[in-house]
């Protein structure tokens, strides 16, 4: 039988495009974070709050993917975060080539941190590398505490998990410790943070995490 048996990654083309982006971000010293969650978990709200905290001290920008509309980019720009919207026209995730094209069009200039707000979806974006340093997953307390084991792909790949809308915890049945346990079963070293953009809980820890990841990437020891 005639076969070709060199095992290859099916998404080799995306991986190659992502590797090029990763090299480019490494040369520029830009930390890149891919944010993934269901629609409505608070990715844009988190970035608005993050922009308010970091925009004065760090050069930050965002590429945001949605199936339709410029709404998220408009919100982020209004919060002082230079942003470029990608409208996928139906595609459920961003690919590395989308990021490359959006970067070329956006002309952000030198950046400390680039946020990539992925299309709201806990499934498809997990498979696609975008040149990021790490993926973070957001899970809002109103979505229910059974999600990590239901979506093991993304929860095993994201090195940071944010439990968002923590100010609503008194009103919903959401067992934080159960979620923490499920997340760390899928990814033992995951950082799990409880956050709220309403009372700002956890936002300082989130910003510290970004600052120290940026310092680490640039070979600088972060100071607290």
């Amino acid at each position, binding site marked *: 039988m005639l076969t070709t048996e060199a095992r290859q990654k099916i998404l080799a083309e995306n991986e190659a495009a992502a590797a090029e982006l990763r090299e480019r971000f490494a040369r520029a010293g830009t930390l890149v974070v891919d944010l993934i969650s269901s629609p409505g978990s608070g990715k844009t709200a988190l970035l608005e709050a993050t922009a308010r905290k970091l925009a004065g001290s760090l050069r930050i920008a965002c590429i945001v993917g949605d199936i339709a509309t410029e709404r998220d980019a408009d919100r982020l720009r209004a919060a002082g975060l230079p942003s470029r919207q990608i409208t996928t026209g139906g595609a459920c995730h961003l690919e590395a080539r989308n990021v490359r094209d959006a970067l070329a069009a956006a002309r952000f200039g030198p950046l400390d941190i680039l946020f990539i707000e992925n299309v709201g979806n806990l499934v498809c974006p997990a498979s696609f590398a975008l040149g990021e340093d790490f993926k973070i997953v957001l899970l809002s307390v109103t979505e229910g505490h059974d999600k990590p084991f239901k979506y093991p792909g993304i929860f095993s790949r994201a090195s940071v998990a944010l439990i968002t809308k923590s100010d609503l915890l008194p009103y919903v049945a959401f067992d934080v410790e159960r979620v923490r346990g499920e997340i760390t*079963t899928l990814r033992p070293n995951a950082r799990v943070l409880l956050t709220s953009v309403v009372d700002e809980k956890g936002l300082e820890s989130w910003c510290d995490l970004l600052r120290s990841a940026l310092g680490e990437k640039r070979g600088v020891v972060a100071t607290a």
Partner: protein
Amino acid sequence: MHELSIVEGLLKLVLADRAERGPSDRAVRAVRVAIGELASVEPTQLAHAWQSVASEHGELVVEWCRARQVCATCGEVPERQPGSWLRLCPACGDPLRVEGGDELDLVEIEYANENGALRC
């Protein structure tokens, strides 16, 4: 939805391999892929997507790869039901780690010769 993106990637690899081989060996009989439990790809949908856009490039054969839950002391947990996860080792109660299951690989392209018979 993203199964079509996966098929697009797969098709590019198959076409590149065929192009490398030259005209005499071009009929593909089967394309074997390994899809892991954590790859966020649904095998039936993937097969349907392949059937819709690439069926002339042979049959898609999916090898489903389970993730393993492993205890540092007791080894792999054998009892885990498909799609369910254990928090702790049922034997000793220690935390478990997950191994494997992230495959999204083209394993093998199987070619037939021009009259459709297998070439050995």
